């Protein structure tokens, strides 16, 4: 029973990281209608920037994280401007291949800059762990910070898209780009801002992911990235609460699957969830159905 509870806690912690990454996917997918394959690698870059800032510049963790957020925001906007913006009218096949190319580019640049040896990531959380049931159930500081961050980000984004002018513009662009342009909304700026927010969140997610699983390699981001996309689809692409729900459910499923079914099959279980969801309910748990027009 206690072990189940501790697996659940781990699952929620991992799921919260997935949820934060999934928010980046879901916003970009909702607005630009593209699968930003490189998102997972922006996470990795964020983690590396934090690592370097702490290790080589000796900056305090909070400042390092802020630095990583700034770096990732810039990176995200630059990627969007250089690689994705020229392809706004192109087929989804072309955009997807470009995004895959971008993902490989980031991984290989990281490989050249930082080498292939895994780096041991220092935890940025200096919070003690909570213990319950006479120390049988430990909840680490990382878990608490991750879950709290997740909730803050979710609430913040919901308020942002619901109340602010830019947030409303985002929802309009997601609905109909042409009409948004006619209403005087700067579509390109809106898409850039979306990429900026998604990438800043990716930096946070990278730091949280590496605090919980402290090996940092150029390929660190790719698997969580794909799984987070799974989470975004699971919750319903384009929906902010959906990304959070999907992320947490997926994290719990993964940890429980690894614990009770097989460690080797952990990834297979996650992907099986994706396939089942897409077949049974392609719009996800909280997504709205889209009707096809000729």
């Amino acid at each position, binding site marked *: 029973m206690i072990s189940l509870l501790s697996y659940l806690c781990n699952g929620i912690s991992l799921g919260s990281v997935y949820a934060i990454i999934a928010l980046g996917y879901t916003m970009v*997918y909702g607005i630009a209608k*593209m*699968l930003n394959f490189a998102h997972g690698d922006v996470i990795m870059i964020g983690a590396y920037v934090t690592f370097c800032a702490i290790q080589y510049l000796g900056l305090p963790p909070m400042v390092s994280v802020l630095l990583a957020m700034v770096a990732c925001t810039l990176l995200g906007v630059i990627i969007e401007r250089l*690689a994705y913006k*020229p*392809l706004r*009218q*192109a*087929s*989804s*096949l*072309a*955009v*997807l*291949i*470009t995004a*895959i*190319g*971008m*993902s*490989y*580019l980031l*991984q*290989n*640049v990281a*490989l*050249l800059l930082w080498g292939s040896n895994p780096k041991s990531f220092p935890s940025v959380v200096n919070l003690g762990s909570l213990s319950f049931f006479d120390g049988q159930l430990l909840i680490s500081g990382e878990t608490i910070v991750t879950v709290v961050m997740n909730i803050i980000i979710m609430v913040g984004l919901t308020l942002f898209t619901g109340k602010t002018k830019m947030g409303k513009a985002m929802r309009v662009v997601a609905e109909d780009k042409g009409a948004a342009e006619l209403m005087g909304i700067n579509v390109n700026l809106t898409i850039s801002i979306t990429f900026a927010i998604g990438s800043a969140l990716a930096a946070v997610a990278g730091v949280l992911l590496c605090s919980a699983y402290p090996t940092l390699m150029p390929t660190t981001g*790719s698997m969580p990235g*794909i799984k987070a*996309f*799974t989470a975004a*689809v699971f919750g319903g692409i384009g929906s902010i609460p959906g990304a959070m729900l999907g992320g947490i459910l997926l994290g719990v499923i993964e940890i429980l699957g690894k614990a009770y079914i*097989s460690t*080797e*099959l952990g*990834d*297979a279980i996650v*992907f*099986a969830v*994706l*396939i089942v969801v*897409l*077949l049974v309910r*392609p719009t996800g748990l909280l997504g709205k159905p889209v009707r*096809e027009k*000729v």
Partner: protein
Amino acid sequence: MRKASKTAVSNLITYGIVVVAYIVCQVLIENGQMTRALKGQLVPICVYVVMAVSLNLTVGISGELSLGHAGFMSVGAFAGTIASAWLLAAFQLENEVIRLILAMVVGGAAAGVAGVLIGIPVLRLRGDYLAIVTLAFGEIIRNVLNCLYISLDGARLHLGFLNPNLPGELMVNGPIGVTGIDKISTFAMGFALILFTLFVVLNLVNSRAGRAIMATRDNRIAAESVGIQVTKYKMMAFVVSAALAGMAGALYGLNFSTVTASKFKFDTSILVLVFVVLGGIGNIRGSVIAATVLTILPEVLRAFSDYRMLVYAIVLILVMLLTNSPILSNLVNRFYPRLHRRAREKGGEAA
């Protein structure tokens, strides 16, 4: 005399290039002018050519981005290597050529069955979702193969999942993969497989079915409304592509003494995709040339091999931007009007 059609001439050129390349290689080997490293690459080159051509059938002709092509290759490699060992143990089939052919048939069949099973759910999806699900299936195949244990006890095969305690000698040992493979792949057979693949794919493309597949790619709804069974033709392209990848996998597996599932990672799928994109999406001859050149280049330019994936990534992005971005293709048009016109004609033919 009837004049040969444009496609027939184009196909003949493709076959011709492959035959000439094969003859040149054989002459170089006879004269001892080929380095050992390059000789070792001959079978992998054949494998990658077949992989690229078969992926082009899915991506270029059928218009669905498959990111799990290496998964089919791994199914073929495992099935082919096991079949080869079993044929030797059960029927004392010493003849290596027949054994290799049978192993490739088994590998192709296994991958084809996997293609049907995966195709049923996958082909109901579109675009990005389809791509991500093929990726997911590729990873699932890799995970499942990592948990697979098969042993050979005399002439009997024993299968275990997550359970290495099997009677007889373990052939497939979970994450360690297939060990003790009889290396029977030859360059000549690789050449034969390329010709077979080209024969299948080119004939399929220029048939009624091929035109139906391309019509479905260009406009699904329009194709459906003129009575084309969309699912059937999509499935046809997907399964043929998977089976050919399986045959290539069998050839690949029997070229090494051990094969692990981790050899067929997502990276391999992307590598093959780079061949297809660089050769020209929908252009079969381009895939053959790109796969050959991009497999030889890193061998020849050792210094380049560190930057291989980096360069491939940049190439992937640049090719996509140059062919799809209105601003950049206008720029190209201004400086090289001929190039642009040709690309446009080709695009009109293929895309």
